[in-house]
């Protein structure tokens, strides 16, 4: 049976060859349906692929950026890195801690740049074909390169500065520029360096020593922070001076306020200093450097400058004490009606012993004695306990602490602060990571990752709309193509069904002779099926040839709009393979009507036909 079955395809092919004009017409008819469909698929695929490629090539479309600065535990990074949708993830530090000065290679002028951590697989570097910078190496953004007049291969001197103990200190690091990022990676002056270097910069800025770089430092007492600066004056401040105060201090807001704005200050009664101005930075805190800048500017004006913090809550056992930070000398206290405090005016670096003092409300006088040490808790980023020496009692239901202590407590709102009982010093906890650079593995992963982070309560931004537009275009074109394909394929099926059915009818006598010669019904059943396969196969070859020629022509015409390696009309071999397979399956299906018809052919018809 197998032998006979193997003879049938040869006979079917011989018959097609015998009627080669009819066969050719049918092949051309089928190819004229298949080829345009391939071209359409190629155009759709090529267009979408090009658009997607451009999206994929530009890492900005894969980037998911945090909107706000917050602390991210190391575990969070570890867990997120396990997600296969993450292409690249590296922690970042506080934006304020990541600015360094770079020295202009030509003029020697200092340019402030942001230092951003990078690591293996950073899409920005990969896209630009730049290797991961090693120790004492860095990559510059286009903007940084332009501002610094530095090219790849040149050395760059970086200067890290900090303000400590009333003066500026600097750490220097030479680094080799190993690459310059293209414009599309961003125009801001940015230096990309290994995370280690960025963390070292941050540590130095915190006051810590970085021995590996020869950067000196000591303890890292939390830097003082205040809610605002208060300026009180007997006369109104000139608007020009007001602006100057902002420009020179790094502050952002100045507003004239009524005396009640800071009436929590014990004894607050400004008398003749009836003009009160509050200077602040929205969503941030004011540092000592701003205080000194404003104070210097107003020197000789008769205005009094002092930082203020809102009252803070201290826990003492089951009690909650409202504490106000106040450090004023007697003269200022008298001028403003403030309660004189035993620790005097504000100091740049108040010793720990002087820092840990409190004036308690008088209600505690029965329980606590003057000179006694109490333990209090404060909840900032983390909760910490520290001792305070009771130096006095105050008539109102309010406690008074040194403003320097209040400033540390204010800092602990945003930074982890701990109290080291051995040294009796406040210390900055590990700064932790305050942001991240995240790139999805592909543009399809952006939205799921975006949603994942949102579900974790992390506000992020991503170019989801651009990706969705491409996806919508892809889906729209797919539907359109499906309709066109359905129409074309229906036509092709009808052509095949009709042609093969007609062929069976035309060849009844030949098929009857074959039956008479000893072919079974089953053998003859496959005769039109084989013919359909050969015709469809021939049509596929012609269609592929046509597709190749036309796609080449289309790509040639649109060559100017395409970048290297892009094509507007292209199909992966996998799709071509599927197209051929589907064509053959449809051809076989179409031939079944004719094949069914052959089973009615009686061998006797051969005799009668004669």
């Amino acid at each position, binding site marked *: 049976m197998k032998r006979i079955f193997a003879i049938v395809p040869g006979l079917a092919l011989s018959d097609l060859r015998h009627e080669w004009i009819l066969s050719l017409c049918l092949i051309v008819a089928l190819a004229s349906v298949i080829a345009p469909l391939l071209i359409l698929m190629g155009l759709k695929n090529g267009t979408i692929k090009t658009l997607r490629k451009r999206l994929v090539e530009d890492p900005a479309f894969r980037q998911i950026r945090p909107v706000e600065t917050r602390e991210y535990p190391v575990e969070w990074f570890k867990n997120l890195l396990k997600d296969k949708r993450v292409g690249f993830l590296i922690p970042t530090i506080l934006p304020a801690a990541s600015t360094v000065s770079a020295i202009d290679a030509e003029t020697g002028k200092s340019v402030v740049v942001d230092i951003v951590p990078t690591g293996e697989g950073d899409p920005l570097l990969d896209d630009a074909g730049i290797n991961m910078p090693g120790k004492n190496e860095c990559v510059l953004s286009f903007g940084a390169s332009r501002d610094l007049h530095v090219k790849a291969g040149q050395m760059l001197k970086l200067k890290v500065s900090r303000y400590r103990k009333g003066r500026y200190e600097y750490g220097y690091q030479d680094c080799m520029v190993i690459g310059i990022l293209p414009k599309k990676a961003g125009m801001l002056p940015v230096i990309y360096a290994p995370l280690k270097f960025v963390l070292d910069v941050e540590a130095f800025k915190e006051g810590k020593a970085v021995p590996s770089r020869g950067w000196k430092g000591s303890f890292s007492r939390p830097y003082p922070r205040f809610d605002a600066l208060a300026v009180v004056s007997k006369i109104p401040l000139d608007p020009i001076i007001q602006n100057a105060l902002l420009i020179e201090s790094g502050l952002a807001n100045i507003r004239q306020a009524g005396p009640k704005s800071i009436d929590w200050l014990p004894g607050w009664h400004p008398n003749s200093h009836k003009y009160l101005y509050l200077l602040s930075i929205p969503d941030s805190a004011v540092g000592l450097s701003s205080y000194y800048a404003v104070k210097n500017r107003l020197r000789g004006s008769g205005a009094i400058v002092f930082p203020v913090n809102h009252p803070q809550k201290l826990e003492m056992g089951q009690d909650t004490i409202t504490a106000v930070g106040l450090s004023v000398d007697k003269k200022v206290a008298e001028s403003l009606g403030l309660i004189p405090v035993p620790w005097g005016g504000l100091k740049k670096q108040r010793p720990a012993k002087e820092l840990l003092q409190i004036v308690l409300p008088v209600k505690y006088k029965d329980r606590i004695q003057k000179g006694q040490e109490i333990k209090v808790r404060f909840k900032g980023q983390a909760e910490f306990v520290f001792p305070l020496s009771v130096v006095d009692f105050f008539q109102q239901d309010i406690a008074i602490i040194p403003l320097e202590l209040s400033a540390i407590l204010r800092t602990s709102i945003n930074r982890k602060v701990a109290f080291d009982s051995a040294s009796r010093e406040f210390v900055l906890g590990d700064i932790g990571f305050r942001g991240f650079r995240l790139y999805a593995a592909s543009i399809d992963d952006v939205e799921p990752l975006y949603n994942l982070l949102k579900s974790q309560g992390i506000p992020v931004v991503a170019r989801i709309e651009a990706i969705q537009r491409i996806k919508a275009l892809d889906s729209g074109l797919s539907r359109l193509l499906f309709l066109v394909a359905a129409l074309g394929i229906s036509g092709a099926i009808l052509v095949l069904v009709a042609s093969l059915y007609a062929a069976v009818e035309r060849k009844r006598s030949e098929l009857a002779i074959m039956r*008479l010669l*000893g*072919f079974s019904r089953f053998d003859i059943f496959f005769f039109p099926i084989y013919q359909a396969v050969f015709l469809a196969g021939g049509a596929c070859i012609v269609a592929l040839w046509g597709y190749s020629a036309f796609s080449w022509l289309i790509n040639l015409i649109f060559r100017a709009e395409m970048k290297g390696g892009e094509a507007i009309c292209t199909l992966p071999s996998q799709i071509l393979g599927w197209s051929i397979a589907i064509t053959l399956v449809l051809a076989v299906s179409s031939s079944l009507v004719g094949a069914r018809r052959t089973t009615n052919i009686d*061998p*006797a018809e051969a*005799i009668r036909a*004669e």
Partner: protein
Amino acid sequence: MPAESQVLKLEGARIVRKRQSGTTFELLVSEFFVCSGQMTCVVGESGCGKSTLLDFLALVLRPKELVSFNIKRGDEAIDIASMWSNGKDGKLAWVRRHFIGYVLQTGGLLPFLTVRENLMLPARLKGMKGQASKLESMASKMGIGSFLQAKPSTLSGGQRQRVAILRAMMHDPLIILADEPTAAVDRKRALKIIEDFRSLAARQGTAIVMVTHDQELVKDVADRWYSFKLDYPDDGIILSRCFEIGVE
């Protein structure tokens, strides 16, 4: 005739066929046999049942009744009657391609194959090998050796018939059924074809059943004759009885 030389024997066949005119044609064959190396001619006027008998012998027309129908290959008897009763179409096709050769009025060659391919097809179907040299010599003997690469459409009627006869013999069948094989050629060629046919069959020991309306043509070569007697027992019914001339 000794029983052992009979290659085909049937008994008690009743074949019914509806004709396009609406009449029912019924053929009764009480006994029919053919012997190897002999030429059996079936003669009769048009519409007497020659073709019906030939269809039945070619295993393409199912009988209404059948007592026995055997084709003998050596000592083995192939029971055609049981194949019909069991409806084994594939088995009947197997018998056709192994034991039966067929010559049609105008050849019945497949137009899409060359003469050589047409000639080789029955042998290929039977799975015979080494037929190429036999084909060359027999084709030369029959005068068609130079047309082996040609398509049937380029041959004359006589050439086509000779190809058809040769094709019917290429797979060494036991029986060759020939339906008016000389109807499409002139008398001179017809005589030559019949003569060739007869001598080839005799040489190979093949039994030939030839249907013809031209008794004159075969009177000198036929070993046995069958004919038909028509009866009209009722309106719309034609009854035909097949009998052997000279025996009845």
